[in-house]
């Protein structure tokens, strides 16, 4: 590099004592700052990199630039008000975040959820998974240099966002899944729109694969890069496609089924090599499996109510408010005071597009949650990044960050 002084670490190196090797202090290796405003860090992530030539010796992630105190804010709101904040945590997986929060409330309050609501939840959760994987594929390929994939992925994503808008009125922050069921039943044009997508999308996945899977440039950049062994993936807490690409067949939808996932037939794609390429293959195959689940759920979508009839937690239907005094009282109590789940602590986990998304909910019996903690996969995966990136080239680091599919909102909360 000719302008070495310009890119060399300008801050105080003492800040990194103990995190980088002693060679950095003698000038033998170079410490380089990457981010927080860097197009390949998928948001505001800063990495302090110790480099020996172009090889990464140490990588020290620095997060918190997107910390918005959502967990603290949720403690100050009623349960139903806090729901809208869960959408904003992982903005590529809004429905999944709502789902885990609602499942936690339902477990705490022993609230029943009608089968129709469970099936619709599965459909929207799987569509959200495809939506998230499309953004991942587009940006990951863009990072590595495959420009056109990005445009195709976002074209298909529009169709999904249109479906979300159709049922919830919102493209991204839907707040559609509510404690006890759904906000409202799906609209009549929902089913044809999803069926259209189911017919249209498999060919599009084939197109992405044509562009990337056998592309020699793509193979050179991804195969054998960012290796993570199965044992390390488990001890470092990796979940989701990152874990499965290392050869561990563990999916929460199969292991601990929630929201009637056990009614559907689907496979868990598992990789063998634990590198960037296998993580790519796993996610591509996951999109196909998600389509399978959506098709089964749509074919068997039962009739019936779309939310629980427990009036202590779920508002009464609008039609009853005109003639039932009891419904008016329940309506009034719910929207002024909120509901009061019993005292207790529960932990619920779901499979988000990135991995295990957990919700630890502590209730003190008041209408506001005492503590909501979200175990977010991006946070854990980012802590495993140094393990994956050390020893590879700085150009590979960009691919490795893309391959663990981090969302910084999910990471910093």
């Amino acid at each position, binding site marked *: 590099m000719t302008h070495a002084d310009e890119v060399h670490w300008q801050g105080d190196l003492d800040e990194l004592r103990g995190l980088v090797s002693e060679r950095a202090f003698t000038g033998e290796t170079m410490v380089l700052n990457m981010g927080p405003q860097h197009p390949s860090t998928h948001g505001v992530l800063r990495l302090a990199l110790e480099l020996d030539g172009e090889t990464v010796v140490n990588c020290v992630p620095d997060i*918190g630039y997107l910390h918005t105190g959502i967990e*603290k804010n949720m403690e100050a709101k009623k349960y139903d008000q806090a729901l809208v904040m869960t959408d904003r945590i992982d903005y590529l997986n809004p429905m999944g975040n709502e789902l885990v929060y609602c499942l936690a409330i339902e*477990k705490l309050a022993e609230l029943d959820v009608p089968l129709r609501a469970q099936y619709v939840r599965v459909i929207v959760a799987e569509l959200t998974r495809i939506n998230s994987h499309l953004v991942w594929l587009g940006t990951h390929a863009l990072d590595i240099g495959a420009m056109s994939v990005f445009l195709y992925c976002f074209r298909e994503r529009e169709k999904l966002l249109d479906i979300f808008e159709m049922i919830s009125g919102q493209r991204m922050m839907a707040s559609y899944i509510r404690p006890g069921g759904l906000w409202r039943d799906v609209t009549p044009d929902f089913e044809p729109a999803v069926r259209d997508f189911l017919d249209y999308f498999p060919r599009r996945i084939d197109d992405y694969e044509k562009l990337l899977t056998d592309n020699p440039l793509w193979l050179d950049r991804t195969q054998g890069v960012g290796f993570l062994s199965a044992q390390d993936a*488990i001890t*470092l807490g990796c979940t989701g496609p990152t874990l499965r690409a290392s050869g561990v067949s563990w999916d929460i939808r199969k292991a601990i089924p929630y929201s009637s996932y056990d009614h559907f037939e689907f496979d868990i794609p598992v990789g063998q090599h634990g590198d960037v390429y296998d993580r790519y293959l796993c996610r591509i195959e996951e999109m196909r499996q998600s389509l399978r689940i959506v098709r089964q759920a749509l074919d068997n979508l039962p009739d019936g109510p779309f939310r629980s009839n427990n009036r202590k937690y779920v508002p009464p239907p609008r039609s009853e408010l005109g003639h039932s005094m009891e419904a008016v009282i329940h309506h009034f109590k719910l929207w002024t005071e909120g509901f009061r789940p019993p005292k207790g602590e529960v932990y619920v986990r779901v499979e988000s597009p990135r991995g295990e998304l957990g919700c630890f909910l502590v209730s003190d019996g008041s209408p506001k949650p005492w503590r909501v903690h979200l*175990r977010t996969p991006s946070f854990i995966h*980012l802590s495993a990044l140094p393990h994956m990136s050390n020893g590879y080239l700085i150009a590979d680091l960009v691919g490795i960050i893309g391959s663990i599919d981090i969302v910084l909102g999910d990471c910093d909360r």
Partner: protein
Amino acid sequence: MLDPVESLQATFPDAVLDVLHFRGETTVIVKAEQIVNICRHCRDTLGFNFLSDVAGVDYYPQEPRFGLAYHLYSMIDNQSLRLKIYLPGENPVAPSITSVYPAANWQEREYYDLLGITFTDHPDLRRILMPDDWQGHPLRKDYPLGYETVQFTFNFDEINKHKPYARE
């Protein structure tokens, strides 16, 4: 397959303080000093090979004030277990379990940062989400939620004086 609760009670008779069953979840409340040995026993003998989550809670004004819940999961037996320790409000110190579960590294840093719990033998105990020079621990219950006063035409200048602009 050993029953985890019975095995823990037999191996650590003094350290297991209480066992709770709630909504199908098992919580074992243990002594904070013994948490590393108990985690090692859970991992090596009981097959809990995966640490899902560490969750810190502030039970202010109760005493002991802080709770740390460790959510363990066994991929071999497909079962979950929650270990829980309680820490005093004055100078909360817990042993770090990173030597047993490296996944706890950043999660313990998170509670060092947000709840002010110190972890002994942690390899890299620094603030993680808040800036390094931040005062206080935001997730504590006695740490108020901040807000910004809305500026209208009539009080624009007055509020502008107190606004926390970035320093030059």
